[in-house]
């Protein structure tokens, strides 16, 4: 039997990796919708990080029954992340609306093609 030693900060490392994946998508993909998807992956990494900060090993959900002394996870990061999720959804909706307008104006949602169309229109 092999003992798998898990580093105590493994959740934080996983969220860092997720964040970097989202950042890489945001930087390299020329498609605007894929850029929004990358932004959402970065958002998920932040949510994951905060929930991991609030996690207590063997802790249950933060619902306190009367008189019980059960260990619960920290409710503050979860409450914060509800705000974060709402803001993330609103930003995504707004970005998609802007992308629809960009498509109507330029006929494409590829950033490099938008540069080409724009330079042609200026000439």
């Amino acid at each position, binding site marked *: 039997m092999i003992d798998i030693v898990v580093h105590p900060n493994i959740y934080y490392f996983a969220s860092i990796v997720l964040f970097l994946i989202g950042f*890489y998508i945001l930087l390299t993909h020329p498609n605007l919708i894929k850029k929004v998807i990358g932004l959402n992956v970065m958002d998920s990494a932040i949510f994951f990080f905060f929930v991991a900060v609030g996690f207590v090993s063997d802790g249950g959900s933060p619902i306190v029954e009367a008189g019980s002394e059960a260990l619960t996870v920290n409710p503050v990061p979860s409450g914060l992340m509800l705000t974060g999720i709402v803001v993330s959804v609103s930003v995504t909706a707004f970005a998609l609306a802007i992308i629809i307008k960009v498509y109507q104006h330029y006929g494409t949602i590829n950033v490099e093609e938008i540069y080409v169309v724009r330079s042609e229109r200026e000439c």
Partner: protein
Amino acid sequence: MKNISFNKLFSFSLVSLLGVLLLISFYDISNLEVTLSLSEHYINYGVEETGAINLVTAILFDYRAFDTIGEATVIFTAASIVALILPQHEASMLKTEFTPIVHQSIAFILPFFWVISIFLIAYGHLSPGGGFSGGVIISAMSILIIFTYGFHYMTRRFNVTRLSLIEDFGALLFLSIGVFGLIYGGSFLANSQAGVYLGNPGELLSGGLMPLSNLAVGAKVGTGLSIIFISLTRED
């Protein structure tokens, strides 16, 4: 072609640099000395101070209710802007016809969606859930209706004017709860500080004004996200 690969290499090195920086800063984070006095106060005194046994709801709708009103405003702003800048026609991608099996099964599922969303909103202070999750399920219902029965059915049954009326009702209800706290001698959105009767923690009618504010946020989030989706599916 060469330009693109150079671009990708540059982005990759930038991302790896950021990754190394983050790894260095987070390597020892679990040994950090932090004071958790705020969380301990919430966990130890949350139930007797707010009357809600779900501590996340206690934080969202009692201690930090002012932030929740900000969140609701963010959704309201997003819904208004998306409805404002997008044109008013049906999207061409939504003209797919589904078989009767899909229509029947969606019609069968929808009542259960109503039940789970109302349950999540009404029991928000007792069990996992709350106004936000219940509202998201309501908006998922409207997305299902648009995709299966078509855009016109949805706008005939629940048109945007009626939905925004419900959204305004939610916003006004939440604001009047806040003003109620002011009238009863507390701060804005005060619940237990204003001396509202809290009830027995664990019962359905407990937590003072918390079920009402859950209802307000649920109505607001559900209709706000529905309006966002309806506006996004319109197209020239």
